[in-house]
Structures are given as structure tokens and as C-alpha cells.
């Protein structure tokens, strides 16, 4: 029995790492977009200022079961995001259990499900349209995301994250990573696929009615999703090294690189319509993911 599982869940890459880095990534996203538009952009602590300011605001009272549900969605989304970050296998060989990839995929999917529920329970027409869009978009990119993740797992014969992380990188894995990268803009609501929170059409989409501390928790949950999803790409793409320190540094560097790439995409593109987004994921991306899954099944050597 070692302390490492607790360190993983609570310190790195768990809560103590995830919350500050969530704010850091939110800042990097805004700052990078601002620099690409030749603006100065927000100061370094801006996401923290926003978070604390929202914590100090007084939202209107919402009594009854409605209100309790409405307030609980952002808490659940933050919990799911933090859990997903804690599961990432940055240091291979310790912790983890059989099938934890399945749990990670579920935890990564939950914030989006909670967002849909939040929009519908807010009873705002903008929230409901936003939620409907998020649900439709989720149905299309999830197929790609899950197929890509299953392709990676099938190629390595395991659902264990730490075993996946140490498995030798193969062309199949890169195909799977490409599939996951394709889904990231839609999962993080970054511009070409920011259909559910399309400001010019839907006000704030599912979050239209949220205010004060609950909105602050949604911001935090969005940051944690950034950390978890870019971290997943980083752990899958990182080469294996012996030193824990180098492994951690590689993890952070690759996460940062993914954030910068997504910001560049957001700054360079305009929003597509829901129909175009769904069409893109079902046609182009599904072909890619199915290719990786079938290839991994064909190439699979007998155990």
C-alpha cells in the first residue's frame, strides 16, 4: 500500500493540480485568441477574478425541487470533471483498475449530459433550444469519440488506462488520437462547433438563466473539461519515460500545446450550423474512427 493513489487523486493530476490549471487554461484560451486578433487580452488572473466575483453575487431565490435540481447540475458537472482529471494515468504502473477507461469515458461525457439537463430545467426557451442543440451535437460526436477510444483500447487488448499509457505507440493509436482531437472542439464548445452556446442566436444557450455562484461553478466545470480532455490526448500521445518528473512535464507541455491548437482553431474559424456540424461528424469523422476500429480488429494478434 503506497500513498501514490491518493497523490494521484488529490495532488497530481488530481484536484490540487486540476483547479488552478483549469483557470490557467481558460486564461490561455482567451489570451491566445486575443493575441491572434492583435489585442492585448485579459490579465493573467482574469478567470479567477471572474470566478470570485460571481461567487459574491446574489442570484434570485429558486424555491422547491426545481431550484434544487437547477442548483445541483453545476455541482455534479464539476465533480465529474474533477474525477476525470484524477483518473488520468500520468505516472504509469501505479493505481488504476480493470476497466477504468470506460469510467473515464463516462466521466468525460457527464458534464455535457448535465448541461443538457440544466438547460431544460431552467425553463428558458433559449436554454431549451441550446440544450436540444447540445444533445443532437453530443449524439453525433460521441459516436466518433467512443469509436476512437475503443479503437485505441482494442489495439492494446485492454481497458486499463495505465496499461494503455505504457503500450507501444502504433499507427492505430495515432489514428485514434486524431479521432479524439476531431471531437475536442465540439466537446469543449470551441468556435467552429460552438452551436449550443451560439451567442448571436441563443443568448447564452443552456446557461442563460444561471447566475452568481452556480454560473461560477459552470465556468470551473468548463475549465476542468479542458484539463481532462487535453490531458487525455497528452497521456495517449506522450512517449513513455522512466522519470516521474519528466513524465509530469511532458503531460503539462502536451496539454498546453493542445489548448493552443484549439485556441488557434477558435480564432481562425466561424461558427457552422447545427446541420453542418452533425453532417461533419457523421460523414468525415465517423469514417476515420471506423477505419481505426476495423484496422485494430484486423491487425489484432491472437492472445
Amino acid at each position, binding site marked *: 500500500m503506497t500513498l501514490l493513489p491518493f497523490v494521484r487523486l488529490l495532488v497530481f493530476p488530481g484536484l490540487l493540480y486540476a483547479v488552478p490549471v483549469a483557470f490557467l487554461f481558460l486564461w490561455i484560451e*482567451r489570451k491566445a485568441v*486575443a493575441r491572434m*486578433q*492583435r*489585442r*492585448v*487580452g*485579459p*490579465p493573467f*488572473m*482574469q478567470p*479567477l*477574478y*471572474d*470566478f*470570485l*466575483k460571481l*461567487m*459574491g*453575487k*446574489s*442570484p*434570485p431565490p429558486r424555491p422547491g425541487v426545481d431550484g434544487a435540481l437547477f442548483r445541483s447540475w453545476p455541482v455534479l458537472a464539476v465533480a465529474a470533471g474533477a474525477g476525470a482529471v484524477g483518473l488520468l494515468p500520468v505516472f504509469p504502473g501505479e493505481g488504476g483498475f480493470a476497466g477504468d477507461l470506460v469510467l473515464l469515458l463516462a466521466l468525460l461525457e457527464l458534464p455535457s449530459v448535465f448541461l443538457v439537463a440544466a438547460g431544460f430545467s431552467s425553463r428558458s426557451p*433559449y436554454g431549451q433550444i441550446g440544450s436540444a442543440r447540445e444533445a443532437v451535437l453530443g449524439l453525433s460526436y460521441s459516436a466518433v469519440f467512443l469509436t476512437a477510444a475503443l479503437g485505441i483500447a482494442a489495439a492494446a487488448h485492454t481497458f486499463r488506462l495505465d496499461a494503455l499509457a505504457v503500450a507501444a505507440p502504433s499507427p492505430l493509436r495515432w489514428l485514434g488520437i486524431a479521432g479524439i482531437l476531431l471531437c475536442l472542439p465540439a466537446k469543449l464548445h470551441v468556435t467552429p462547433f460552438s452551436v449550443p452556446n451560439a*451567442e448571436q442566436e*441563443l*443568448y*447564452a444557450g443552456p*446557461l*442563460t*438563466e*444561471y*447566475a*452568481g455562484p452556480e*454560473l461560477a461553478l459552470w465556468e470551473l466545470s468548463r475549465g476542468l473539461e479542458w484539463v481532462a480532455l487535453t490531458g487525455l490526448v497528452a497521456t495517449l500521445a506522450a512517449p513513455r519515460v522512466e522519470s516521474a518528473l519528466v513524465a509530469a512535464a511532458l503531460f503539462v507541455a502536451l496539454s498546453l500545446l493542445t489548448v493552443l491548437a484549439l485556441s488557434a482553431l477558435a480564432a481562425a474559424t466561424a461558427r457552422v450550423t447545427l446541420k453542418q456540424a452533425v453532417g461533419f461528424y457523421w460523414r468525415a469523422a465517423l469514417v476515420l474512427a471506423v477505419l481505426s476500429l476495423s484496422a485494430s480488429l484486423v491487425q489484432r494478434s491472437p492472445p
Partner: protein
Amino acid sequence: MNPWRRLVDGCRRRSPWLFHMNAGSCNGCDIELIACLSPRYDVEQLGVKLEASPRHADILCVSGPVTRNTAEAIRTVYGQVCAPKAVVAIGSCPASTNAFVGSPTVEGPLERHLPVDVFVPGCPPRPDAIIEGVTRAVQILCEREGARAEATADHAPGEGPT
């Protein structure tokens, strides 16, 4: 002032989120407000964000002379902004109804409907003037919230009228 209040107060000064409402404006002031977000003026360095929902905002920016159709809506939107909040009237129209004075379809000026904190005059005002008005509104908002917190500190900390 206790440390938590002081911290939130500091953050409030650095993170004013705006909601823009057009109360029958000719679009001149609206364009100038959007110009504040452009690379030349870039208010994001002050932490300003133009929010899509009044629920998220701290400062309500109103342009236009308040036409009969928007008078009710403007009171509703003001009610949706969560406390602490401030109102900035952008342009000459909300201040005096400007060229539309005496029109039977105009129910302005804005002060008949909402408590206005800052007037930014001009037809339309320059983006610099709008930015100055917003920073002034943030100061007013923080001072008022500080005074309110002092007044209610003895009774129930953290609770206040919305």
C-alpha cells in the same frame, strides 16, 4: 471589511460584465459599444466581457430613447440583472430623448424607468467615453456595495436585498 468581502470587492473591480440593451436606438451607439471590444480599444484587458444574458451581467448598458415598446422590457431586463448592479446610459437619447423629444411613441428619458448611475453623452459617444463611463460605473457599484455591506454587517452577514 472582512477578508472575504475585500477579496470579492477587488475581483468585482477587475471583472465588470456588461449586458447591452437597445431601447429603440438608431444603432449608432450600439456600434460604438461593439467598437470597444475591437483590437483598437480592447476592453478585455480591463476584464470587461459583453455577456449574452442579463443574468450574467454586472452592468446594464442602455442605448436609445426608450420607445413605448421597450419600456416594459427594459424594466424586466433590469430586474434580471443580479445584485450588485449598475446602469450606464449610452448616448444622448437615454439622457434626454435627443432628437425624438416630444414624440408620442417615446417614453424616455431612461431615468423615468431605471435608476441610472452614469450618463455617457454624445450622438454617438466615442468608444473612449464609453470605456470611461463603464469604469466609473464599476467604481460606483463597488462603493455602493461596500456601503450596503457595512450597513447590514451587524444583522446578517452575506444576506442582503436583491
